[in-house]
């Protein structure tokens, strides 16, 4: 059985109860992926809250668009301290594509450097000075966001797998046929797509997914569309 993950944007609100109710309505989701493009509630706080209330898999999305290496290190160890071990790393959206277009883009690290740092943190090393800050390391499962629509992107995915990515959140390839030709990366792949994209998929697309080694689906559900998201997840769970 493949894992259905509901990707939720961290809301701009202080009303956590409404967020929890929306998450609870997604009963077909086996896990939640919390993404904060900028300005929303902390995914760390929400993740901790959801894990306690729902007991489902929580994936925290970290990106360097609005955080330097010190802040990202803090996020990683805080996630681990809260018992949130699954993280998904991406490059993040440039501020001009977010609610804060005037904000200064950070990108102190890029995705590969962030992956490298997360690995060092997991091994128990402080990226500031490479000293061992916690014996035995920090429990983290480190995933990355990726695409494979071009040879360059495929090369980059291979690089990240070689660098030790534990799983991959892969944007639905433009040529789904290529899915079967994905290199033997030997890591779980979660296909990532939005509600609108998913509605355009045909049965044939799903058959290809079913025949592929894909470990699950990550469905991006816009704020306020949880009911529709649940309907879609339930319908597609039959195919998966």
């Amino acid at each position: 059985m493949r894992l259905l993950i509901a990707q939720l944007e961290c809301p701009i609100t202080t009303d956590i109860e409404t967020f929890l109710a929306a998450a609870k309505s997604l009963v077909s989701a086996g896990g939640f992926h919390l993404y904060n493009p900028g300005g929303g509630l902390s995914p760390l706080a929400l993740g901790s809250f959801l894990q306690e209330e729902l007991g489902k898999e929580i994936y925290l999305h970290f990106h360097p668009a609005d955080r330097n290496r010190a802040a990202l290190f803090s996020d990683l160890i805080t996630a681990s301290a809260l018992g949130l071990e699954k993280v998904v790393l991406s490059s993040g959206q440039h501020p001009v594509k977010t609610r804060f277009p005037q904000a200064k883009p950070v990108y102190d690290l890029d995705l590969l450097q962030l992956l490298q740092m997360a690995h060092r943190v997991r091994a128990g090393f402080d990226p500031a000075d490479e000293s061992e800050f916690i014996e035995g390391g920090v429990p983290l499962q480190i995933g990355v966001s990726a695409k494979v629509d071009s040879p360059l992107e495929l090369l980059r995915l291979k690089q990240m797998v070689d660098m030790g990515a534990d799983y991959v959140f892969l944007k639905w390839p433009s040529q789904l046929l290529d899915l079967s030709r994905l290199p033997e990366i030997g890591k779980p792949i979660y296909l990532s797509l939005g509600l609108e994209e998913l509605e355009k998929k045909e049965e044939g697309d799903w058959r290809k997914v079913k025949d592929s080694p894909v470990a699950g689906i990550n469905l991006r559900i816009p704020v306020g569309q949880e009911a529709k998201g649940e309907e879609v997840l339930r319908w597609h769970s039959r195919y998966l």
Partner: protein
Amino acid sequence: MMITTQKAKEAVLSSLSSYGKIVLIGCGGCAATCQTGGSEQVKEWEEKILAGRVLASIVCEEPCDERLVRRDLRRIKKELEEADAVLVLACGLGVQTLVDVTGKVCLPGLDSQFYGKAERLGRFFERCQACGSCLLGETGGVCFLTRCPKGLRNGPCEDMIEGKCGVKDDLDCVWKAIYDRLEALGQLEKLNRVRDPEDWSEHLHPQQVIWERGGTGERG
């Protein structure tokens, strides 16, 4: 070269409103090429926009070079002494050099935009960020720091769509350009290297390069 654009005339006139007698200084280098501070622009300001208020005008060979500024200003020494303010049609380097040399109120008439190349007159493109550690040898001569809006050092982001930048839609992804260039050069293996994060402790502003005695300008 430093690419400059002209400030709005109203804004410049407003900044000059409390000063009567003006000396006007242009740039014979970058701003002349950009047609923002060359002899024609200096003439326009002197004869039309500030008519009757300009004690003297001059186009310095390179207003960012203190030696050349001192040499050129000898010709208008008296007018400078009498001036209430200096309007500088040069980049920020020129304005600050003139402040250092004259001690006068020096007001900028231009905005410094970026270090760029001139494709032809009127078409200027940002190509260098003066990062202090040039990596063009690793990327086929294409600068990712300047041409990627995120400044990513290790390949494209997930927003790239069919070789196009996901941040500035009219832009080709620089990492696609680097890939194509290295492929053409038979050097794709250079993409396998993962570059370390920048060490920002080495970039504390303001930076300086001071030659040691007998040195060659190499950064110490």
